[in-house]
């Protein structure tokens, strides 16, 4: 990979690490609500994924994480 491209991408990431988010931390009330949690009940969701995995050919890419309150 070209060194120049790498440095450019790196700079974007450095900027990204400290950039001001477009959703301010105090605007995250909705995102912090449990109903917006992808994996609100882990025991329940891992069970239903197991039900499907055991009976269907497809597996993987089941559970998502992230979002939330972004608290510090």
């Amino acid at each position, binding site marked *: 990979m070209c060194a120049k491209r790498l*440095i450019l991408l790196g700079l974007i990431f*450095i900027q990204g690490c400290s950039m001001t988010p477009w959703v*301010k*931390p*105090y*605007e995250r009330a909705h995102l*912090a*609500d449990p109903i917006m949690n992808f994996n609100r009940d882990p025991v329940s969701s891992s069970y239903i994924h197991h039900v499907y995995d055991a009976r269907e050919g497809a597996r993987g890419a089941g559970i998502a994480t992230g979002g939330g309150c972004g608290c*510090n």
Partner: protein
Amino acid sequence: MKVYLSKIILLLGLLAFSTAAFCAKEMNAPAPDFTLKSLSGKNLRLSELAGQVVLLNFWASWCAPCREEMPILNDLHNKYSALGFTVLGVNVEEQTDKAVSYIADRPVDFPILLDNKNNVSSLYEVIAMPTTVLIDRNGTMRYLHQGYKAGDEKEYVKLVKKLVRE
């Protein structure tokens, strides 16, 4: 070889520019004045508290570390208020009834202000939840602490004691 070298340069560059938020950041700027309605119904203006040390804390009922911090701030307020110190809890939620019901369940002794339009949050450029700003007796912002983890209160006590003695 060149690719690895540029990666190392990036890493070192970021190390040089990174800012650790373990400790409170020092500041030296006048605290922007504002007026907000408090839970008790009265309006409260920051400049009216000139002469007192103010700990301005931005919180929300949906923020877990904020909830953990509240009883600690309450203790801090009660311990040092006789020496000219007060905590101001600024709730940033759009729906004020959330703050009302939270405080009804777990009351505190310091004033709770309602910043439901987020004017004060943007005035103070709040980029973390919770955010604590320590303002000295002259109305100058002296320390900024972002976030809350168990053990941070030791730092709060240290800084409040310092500012109260000035």
